[in-house]
């Protein structure tokens, strides 16, 4: 997550337990959360709460699971409140398929077939792709980087991309069963 955030923001982030961080992420479901929260509010420049439930205060909040885009949104929100650091770009990009990778590449990693299939008809954001195919967002990010390196996709920054819910929940629509059965039958499921 941290390198991902680093790539998105153009800053190098470091996880530590120092008493005066730039940003404190506080898990308010944990034991002694109240104490941790008050400490964070006293010493951190910005505080973001994390919980399994929706946030109730005006403080920036992330509902689990923590996705990189939710973290970025929360960072933007927190730092905007400070008014001191420039807002971090959302970091959302639209990926456009330029060409499919080679057969050899696809044989080596068949997940690329799903990703390219998702991008074949129109550009999509990372988040939107995860709503089409059941793939971990960080795996997807890696695959998209591979495709970009192979000049198979091009990337453009988006001004703002809907986060698809506070918890960034990934909804995978039901694929036609026929295709799953066909893949299984062909031994590529």
């Amino acid at each position, binding site marked *: 997550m941290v390198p991902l955030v680093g790539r998105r923001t153009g800053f190098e982030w470091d996880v530590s337990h120092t008493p005066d961080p730039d940003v404190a992420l506080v898990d308010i479901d944990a034991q002694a959360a109240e104490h941790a929260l008050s400490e964070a509010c006293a010493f951190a420049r910005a505080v973001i709460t994390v919980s399994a439930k929706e946030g109730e205060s005006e403080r920036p909040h992330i509902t689990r699971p923590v996705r990189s885009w939710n973290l970025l949104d929360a960072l933007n929100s927190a730092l905007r409140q400070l008014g001191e650091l420039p807002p971090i770009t959302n970091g959302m990009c639209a990926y456009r398929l330029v060409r*499919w990778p080679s*057969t050899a590449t696809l044989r080596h990693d068949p997940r690329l077939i799903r990703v390219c299939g998702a991008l074949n*008809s129109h550009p999509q954001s990372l988040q939107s792709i995860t709503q089409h195919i059941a793939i971990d967002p960080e795996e997807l990010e890696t695959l998209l980087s591979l495709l970009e390196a192979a000049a198979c996709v091009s990337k453009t920054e988006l001004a703002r991309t809907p986060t698809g819910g506070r918890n960034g929940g990934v909804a995978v629509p039901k694929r036609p069963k026929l295709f799953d059965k066909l893949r299984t039958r*062909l031994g*590529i499921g």
Partner: protein
Amino acid sequence: MDRSYKFLFTGPPGVGKTTAIAAISDIEPVTTEMKSSGELANIKEMTTTALDFGELKLQGGDVVRLYGTPGQRRFQFMWELLLEGALGVVILIDNMREDPLGDLDIYVENFSGLIAETGAVVGLTRSDVKPEPGIDAFYERLQTHNVMLPVLECDIRRRDDVSLLLDALISTIEN
């Protein structure tokens, strides 16, 4: 009730449509071949003049039917008959032919309606023997048709390669 679905294999004469279907079909493909004449006779003795037919039986009783079209353009009426109800089309192009990009034009144009509604994949054969035109040239040509299709090098005798073509095709259709 068991359902059946249809995929189409098309491409110029001699490219290997019958062979590709045979590579993955659960049944011995049904063929409708007649003796070749003219220049085609120098390439192959027999040619499909109605259709090829193969089948994949899926779990639960559903069936995927694989239809191969005749290659010669004079059988365009069969292409029109066969594309009815197809879920997608595999366009096989032989890079050894005189004008593979011209061949691509023919099939993309003739199946443009089906491609717009469903999807297609281009299987490029024998590019290991004759590398030009390269894959980039095919993508450039597809751009002139305003369409993005997977262009994948393949050996249609290999089941894995034909399966990969179908996988790419259904990946574009399901999205």
